[in-house]
């Protein structure tokens, strides 16, 4: 079974009848780095939240290895939200212990190595760190797991270009070959070089799912250029 995640007829309607996802169907394979791309309000974050069980679907379902979101799928998914979500009073080393306790696949030595590479002290309290450093700590925690699926929502949006390179290197070097990385971002040109596949979303529907190689060969342009063409205002 190659499909890691199956999105079946998934619909999410918020209050005031705002349709975020409209009968979406999608299959996410194993062992790929996939870009989840679309303009603001296209439904990327809603899809990600539904995969993580942070929202209830209005209709349809998301299945990971055949299971609906729950404690079991949360063991398989390593999720980086688009916001700072750790308790500000925690120290970095407390965070490592916290992840060790709850995620069997967490590798503390890997986390410590990355923290050391970025000169982030384990004794530092999160509230003393800058927003960018907090985001790096979050990414380190998420990428220090041996998960089956890494879901990264805007992982490079809030950091400087130098840190972006480090983060992308971190993503590429820290996931195992059988795992999939689902990357949602607007900064396509920065991540294009690491992607295997892309999914374009518009108005809560998938309008394209293809390999980066195919897009370059068949369309004769980069993913970034093609995205601008498809989503031109």
């Amino acid at each position, binding site marked *: 079974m190659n499909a890691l995640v199956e999105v079946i007829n998934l619909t999410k309607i918020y*209050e005031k009848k705002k349709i975020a996802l409209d009968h979406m169907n999608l299959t996410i394979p194993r062992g790929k780095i996939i870009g989840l791309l679309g303009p603001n309000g296209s439904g990327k974050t809603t899809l990600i939240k539904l995969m*993580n069980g*942070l*929202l209830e679907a209005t209709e349809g379902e998301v299945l990971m290895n055949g299971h609906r979101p*729950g404690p079991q799928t949360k063991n398989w998914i390593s*999720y980086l939200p688009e916001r700072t*979500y*750790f*308790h500000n009073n925690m120290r970095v080393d407390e965070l490592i212990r916290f992840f060790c306790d*709850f995620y069997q696949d967490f590798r503390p030595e890997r986390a410590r190595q990355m923290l050391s590479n970025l000169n982030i002290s384990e004794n530092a309290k999160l509230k003393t760190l800058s927003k960018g450093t907090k985001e790096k700590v979050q990414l380190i925690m998420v990428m220090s797991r041996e998960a089956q699926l890494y879901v990264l929502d805007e992982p490079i949006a809030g950091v400087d270009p130098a840190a972006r390179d480090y983060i992308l290197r971190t993503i590429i070097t820290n996931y195992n070959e059988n795992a999939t990385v689902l990357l949602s971002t607007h900064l396509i040109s920065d991540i294009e070089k690491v992607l295997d596949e892309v999914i374009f979303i518009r108005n809560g529907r998938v309008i394209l799912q293809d390999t980066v190689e195919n897009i370059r060969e068949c369309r004769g342009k980069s993913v970034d250029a093609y995205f601008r063409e498809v989503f031109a205002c």
Partner: protein
Amino acid sequence: MLGKLLKHEWKAVWKVPMLLIAILMITAVMAGLTFALPIWDSEWVGLPLSGIMLICMFYFAIIAVTVGIMIYFAVRYYKNMFTDEGYLTHTLPVTARQLLLNKTITMSAWNLIAMLAVVISIFVFFAIMILSLAPKDSSFTRELMETIRAWPEVLKSPYMDGFEGFCIGGLLVVLIGAFSNSMMLIGAITLGQMVRKHRILGAVGAYFGLTIIVQIFSTVIMIPMMVKMMDSSYYDSAYGAQSPFPILTSFYFLVAGVSLVLGIGLYFMSEYLIRHKLELE
């Protein structure tokens, strides 16, 4: 996993309530000690005023411990479950039941600790006050020991019939009250999340709404009990050297029963809402 959740929750929360309890105990001792000082007869009004201020501080510390600790836990519950921190809480590989049990157990336990701390602080305050005001010879100690020795005899009197049941009832009210008070907050905050655009306002509204419903419901349930208490035959027997404890015990058991049903109802409502209606912003 529940054990791990409890371990991390306890580690994260103990400092604030313990600080408040420490302040309470210090103010209890200081307020009690004012009676040992010769300030009350002072001609300068500032000294007795300072004593009164210290006693007021003790009173405010009691409020800070009882109300403050509950507010602290309510805010923490809201932040952990329904704000950005919820992204961590709800992506842990645990069930909604484990998450909610963790919060309920911790909040109830601290509610109970707060009540216990208040009782101890009042005891400390009065003990220091009595010892300070008591005659300095041995007569006070002697009288105190005699009163303690006479207690078993007092318990045998017909006025004290059913006193043990009354104590058990009181204990049940306290224990179940710690749980149901916590569930009132948890239930109201969780219910408030259904008002998606005004979640805090929704929680506050839900708390007042729940309180009013509980008050009305309790009053309706208590009416038969009150009627019975006002019944002339009861008063006749009460004045006729009969113990008031049996009727008070049934009152306590009724309160405990209502609180338990309320707490359990709110627990399952909250669990249902977290499991099926969670929507993080």
